[in-house]
């Protein structure tokens, strides 16, 4: 380890104008060694998934791959796995859309109107974050059974959209707070209705906040394991999270290559969304600064 990090520390030392005391050099070397060890700890576990996904002869362990994309073509031609991806997409996109629709409306009300119980409501939904999900899942399951929503996709979508709603409401309230109310008032005097003003004045400028809320909600829904595990029994409704779990634990012979490829497919949408939203967020905040 020391051998790896010393060369990277050396140029820094060499380019310094003021000579470093030996004690500083030692401290920096130790610092780089620690950082490299931490990075190895964080990245090495991914080696298996990445290498096995492109290995035609993948096993349970890390080895040099027999490079091919056959696992991915198998993922998309297999009778079961494409449905997992479709279900995951339907669940995550629908729950995000529903969550944002409710969050924008609610956040606007929380920001623009002073009504009795507003502060109480804000703190009550903040307190909800203290409750760990496994502590309410049992009662939630029974309620869903009674509402005939257990074992349905729309039931799961509803639960996930609402579980992220406290955070979205807080985010949207803060975002709308930052939009000057004078802009809206100007639109009203120009003859715009309240809803018209929201659509034309508020919605176009809350993009970054909306993007952040959408990303949090999508990733939460996409990665959720406990709720679909409890609520869904029908195999045709399983999202990727449950499909991967079943493929790993319930088959006698695990198809490692397919499993790794599924893992990669599962990681990609949130990764792409993250990159896209990040770029978009940077651009929009930069644009706002330039115009301002």
């Amino acid at each position: 380890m020391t051998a790896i990090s010393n060369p990277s520390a050396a140029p820094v030392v060499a380019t310094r104008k003021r000579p470093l005391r030996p004690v500083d050099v030692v401290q920096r070397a130790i610092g780089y060694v620690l950082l490299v060890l931490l990075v190895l700890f964080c990245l090495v576990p991914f080696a298996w998934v990445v290498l096995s996904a492109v290995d035609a002869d993948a096993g349970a362990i890390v080895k040099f791959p027999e490079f091919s994309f056959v696992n991915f073509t198998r993922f998309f031609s297999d009778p079961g796995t494409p449905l997992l991806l479709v279900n995951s997409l339907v669940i995550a996109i629908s729950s995000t859309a529903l969550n944002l629709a409710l969050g924008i409306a609610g956040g606007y009300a929380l920001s623009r109107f002073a009504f009795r119980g507003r502060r109480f409501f804000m703190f009550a939904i903040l307190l909800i974050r203290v409750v760990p999900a496994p502590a309410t899942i049992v009662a939630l399951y029974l309620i869903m059974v009674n509402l005939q929503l257990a074992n349905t996709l729309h039931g799961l979508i509803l639960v996930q959209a609402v579980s992220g709603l406290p955070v979205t409401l807080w985010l949207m309230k803060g975002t709308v707070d930052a939009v000057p109310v004078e802009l809206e008032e100007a639109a009203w005097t120009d003859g715009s209705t309240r809803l018209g003003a929201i659509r034309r004045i508020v919605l176009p400028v809350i993009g970054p906040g909306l993007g952040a809320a959408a990303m949090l909600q999508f990733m939460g829904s996409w990665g959720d394991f406990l709720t679909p595990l409890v609520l869904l029994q029908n195999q045709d409704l399983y999202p990727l999270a449950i499909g991967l779990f079943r493929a790993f634990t319930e088959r006698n012979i695990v198809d490692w290559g397919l499993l790794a490829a599924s893992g990669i497919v599962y990681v990609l949408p949130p990764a792409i969304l993250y990159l896209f939203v990040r770029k978009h967020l940077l651009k929009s905040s930069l644009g706002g600064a330039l115009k301002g």
Partner: protein
Amino acid sequence: MTSLVDAPASVQTAIRPPAPGRRRSRRTWPIVALLLGPSAVLITVFIVLPAVYGVWLSLTNTQLTGFAARNPQFIGLDNYTYLLASADFLASLGQTGTFLFWSAIIGQTVLGMVAAVLLSRTWVRGKGFFGAALLMPMVVPEVVASLTWASVLATSPEGTLNRLTGLFGADSTAWLQDFPMLAIILVNIWRGLAFAMIMFQAALEDVPAELIEASRVDGASAVQVFRYVTLPLIRGPVFLYLLLTTISTVGVFGLVYFLTRGGPGGQTTIAAIYIYERALQFSQIGIGSAASIILLVIVLVLGVVYVRLAKVQV
């Protein structure tokens, strides 16, 4: 996990007086009900109601199947007395405590702090790369995180961890069978390290650089500066982090369930898995709900303790 970060920052916005232009009148009620009503109703039905219903269920002998499923009886505190005398449940609480203490309070906090302090040094090159690499374990879905570790902890001598220990001459070990608790602690440290780092990086940015420089000029070593200057200044954020990581670690389910399903021999049946097994696999809804309530009370007590500790010297 990420979502918890936003809450504390937003608290301040709520304390601010209402923005000008906000009007208080009777006419606002219909539009507030229209805009906020659906959210309030749904939150009540799918978040508040389960919590309240859980308390009621914990006082009954409700089952998923069988006679008690059709006709559940109110049985008072029987479920609680059963649980508090049950060796399985107490062992499960103990395992939750071990898991929480070593993975979150020690592991994530120490490693996250090391990463945050190192990345705040001006002389470190490649901060973007280091930061992005350390974030990876946090951004992938739970199931993929478990899958990667299933391979690292594989029993065969060619498993990644066995190869590593093999370099030091150790025999290969069946990690998930022989040291299941150690294994899941390691996995959870890996998963939560980045969240600790982000929280501590934000806190360290608020520590005035002049204070650090002044102490260095006065001859304090880097360790002394950290211990006596930096740490007391970021005390509040550290306890806030401990609160958040306690909540999320007690809520960890998939990561452990995927790897061990509570085994072997119940050695990794942390409370979340105990609740799931009791209520939904053995169909003892009443007992599972009582266990949920006990867990919830413990989290709330810990939360109050952290908040108290955070305020002592600030």
